[in-house]
Every structure is written in C-alpha cells, then in structure tokens.
C-alpha cells in the first residue's frame, strides 16, 4: 500500500515530526511504500541542515535525510511555507538574493500541488501536526 505523510510542525518543539518519523519507519518495516512526505507550516523547519542538537539527543533532520537515502523517499518542503521561514535551496537563495541556503540532504522544495498530488496518488494520507 502507498502512504502519504504530512508533517505540520517543526523538529523538537512538538512531537509531530517524531511521531511521523516513527510511523514512517513502521510503514517501511511492514513492506509498504511511502509515496511522499510533505512538510508544511512550521514542518518546513525539518528541512534545514543547520540544526545542531545536543549529541545525546536524536537528530531529527538527519534521521529524515537518512530515511530518504536508504529508502528513496521523496521529502518535499512547501516552497511558500519555506520562504516565509527561511528554508532555501541553492536556486531559491539565488532567486531571492540571499547569501546562503540551508536545505538538508534528501529534501527538495516544491509547491503545494505536491501535497494534493500525494493525496490523489497515495492510498492513505496521514497528517501529523499540532
């Protein structure tokens, strides 16, 4: 079965991203497919590579990146929500005249249509938020 996952809160502040990640891992462990994880609202903050959590804590951003690398999962950060909150990739940074970008490995920035498309293409869509 194909799953879509929506994450609406950033890392650490709220448990939503943790629950979504553990849910995603369980989906994969059962041999199902994750069509896409879509990050919206403050959830876009899961996609910055500049977080430096304490060493004795989980690294939420890296965890998502590693899951994407290992299982080829499409991690999509909403462009409009990302722009508001300062999450940029190289081309977005260039386009908006910013001096740096911060998108983490495995994440890509795209439009909200990717969320609606996930709802259409996936057999199930589960929302994690606050």
């Amino acid at each position, binding site marked *: *079965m194909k799953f879509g996952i929506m994450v609406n809160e950033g890392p650490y502040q709220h448990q939503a991203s943790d629950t979504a990640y553990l*849910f995603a891992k*369980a*989906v994969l462990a*059962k041999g199902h497919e994750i069509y896409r994880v879509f990050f919206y609202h403050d959830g876009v903050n899961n996609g910055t590579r500049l977080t430096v959590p304490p060493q004795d804590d989980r690294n939420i951003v890296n965890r998502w990146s590693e899951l994407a690398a290992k299982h080829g999962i499409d991690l999509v950060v909403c462009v409009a929500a990302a722009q508001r909150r300062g999450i940029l990739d190289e081309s977005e940074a260039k386009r908006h005249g910013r001096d740096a970008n911060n998108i983490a490995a495995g994440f890509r920035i795209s439009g909200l249509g990717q969320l609606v498309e996930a709802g259409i293409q996936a057999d199930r869509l*589960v929302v994690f938020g*606050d």
Partner: protein
Amino acid sequence: MLHTVNKSPFERNTLKSCLAHVKPGSAVLLIEDGVYAALAGTVASDMVQQAMAEVSVYALGPDLDARGVANRVIDGVKVIDYAGFVDLVIEHPSTQSWL
C-alpha cells in the same frame, strides 16, 4: 474511519469534538498528549468509556510509556505500537487527524 487525537483532554476540546463526530464502528487512536485521555480515574474517563460502547479506542503504547502512565489505562482501551498504528490506517479507508 480512523480518528487520531493528540491533545490532552484537560487542556483542549479536541477529543470532545472528535467523539462528537465519530460514527459507530470507527476507531479512535490516542497519540502524543492525547494518551492522557486513555487513563482511568480522571474527569475525562467517563467520556471515553461512553464512546467505547460504539467505537474502538486505542492508545499508542510508546507515548503512554514515555509519560509514565501505561499502568493506568482504562480497561478495554487497546494499547498498540507504531506497527499497530500502521495497521489501523490500512484497516480504515481514511484517517482524520484531530489537531
């Protein structure tokens, strides 16, 4: 339909609103701070027990454990893990997250 609730019933009306919109035969899964609603002997217990007459109520075990309340769960509330969460999502044609 599967409904998930992630708010403490003592702080928000999320569970109350969810339970007002569940249809018989559907399932309610309590996660994150929502698991406090799964506990016996609280002012919210009656509301949950009444709902259990018509819907199945589940609580996410790792969230109960994290909060140190796993030994206080209402009889009949089914405690599941993340794999069980996935099974519930598959079992029901759609999932509504009450946020």
